[in-house]
């Protein structure tokens, strides 16, 4: 069984790669490369998978998931400029693809502290950037490079 909880947050970002020229950035990122950035009302869906507890009928206490997402994800990114205010994006371009990877890292790192020994697992992260753009990351299907490793690679490229 899967349970999905939806969260809303607003943030700004600018897509710009220091490894590309001005013209290449314009061509690749279009309006998303405008120098001062722009914002979205994002919708984050977090899906957990497992079996409902036979006694309580619950897959997990939703309040625990809410607290994890609120304290470890939303506090970091809601009403922030992702490029300037969020350390994870100091050397990582805040595309919504990368945002999904960063959120996956944050949830996985803090999962045991907030969910304890709960047998449920993090299954999926979906971020709707606008009504027309959605990004989905499935977490139990294949190995994943954590965002912080991608970040290191990016720094190495810059050096």
């Amino acid at each position: 069984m899967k349970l999905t909880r939806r969260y809303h947050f607003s943030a700004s970002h600018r897509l710009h790669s220091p490894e590309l020229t001005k013209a290449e950035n314009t061509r690749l990122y279009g309006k998303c490369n405008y120098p001062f950035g722009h914002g979205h009302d994002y919708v984050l869906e977090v899906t957990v998978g497992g079996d409902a507890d036979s006694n309580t009928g619950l897959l997990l206490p939703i309040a625990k998931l809410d607290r994890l997402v609120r304290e470890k994800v939303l506090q970091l990114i809601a009403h922030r400029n992702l490029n300037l205010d969020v350390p994870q994006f100091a050397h990582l371009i805040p595309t919504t693809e990368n945002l999904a990877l960063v959120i996956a890292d944050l949830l996985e790192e803090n999962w045991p502290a907030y969910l304890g020994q709960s047998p449920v697992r993090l299954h999926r992260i979906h971020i709707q950037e606008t009504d027309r753009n959605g990004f989905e990351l499935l977490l139990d299907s294949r190995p994943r490079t954590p965002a912080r490793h991608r970040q290191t690679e990016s720094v190495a490229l810059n050096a």
Partner: protein
Amino acid sequence: MFVTRKAEFSASHVCRLAHLSDQENQEIFGPAANPNGHGHNYVVEVTLEGDPHPITGMVIDLKELKQILEDEIVTPMDHRFLNYEVAPFDKTVPTAENIAREIWFRLEKRFRNSSPSLRKVRLFETPDLYVDVAGEDFASS
């Protein structure tokens, strides 16, 4: 090919276990443990899987699907207090998880060994919370 049809029902429920104290229920179920209950506008999306009929071009006659959803879900659950009026919620807690399972069981009987087959039940308790149940969830039982 998948076909999904939506149905809606409004109902009240209370999530609490009789053998636990008020405080324990509050810790597990939060405000949903309020003994007098509260309500939701539930939305259920039912997904069937099958091939379009070579002549009609339809996976299923949608009037027929609508009638099945009416008979199995909407008529018995709409404007009801689930704990008091809809079995098995006199015995099991009507969490979104358990309501989704119950809807699956009711529909599975109607689509057993049939084409199209029942693929998924998605139950929205609120616009920001939904549960998915699919056949593989029962593979081991």
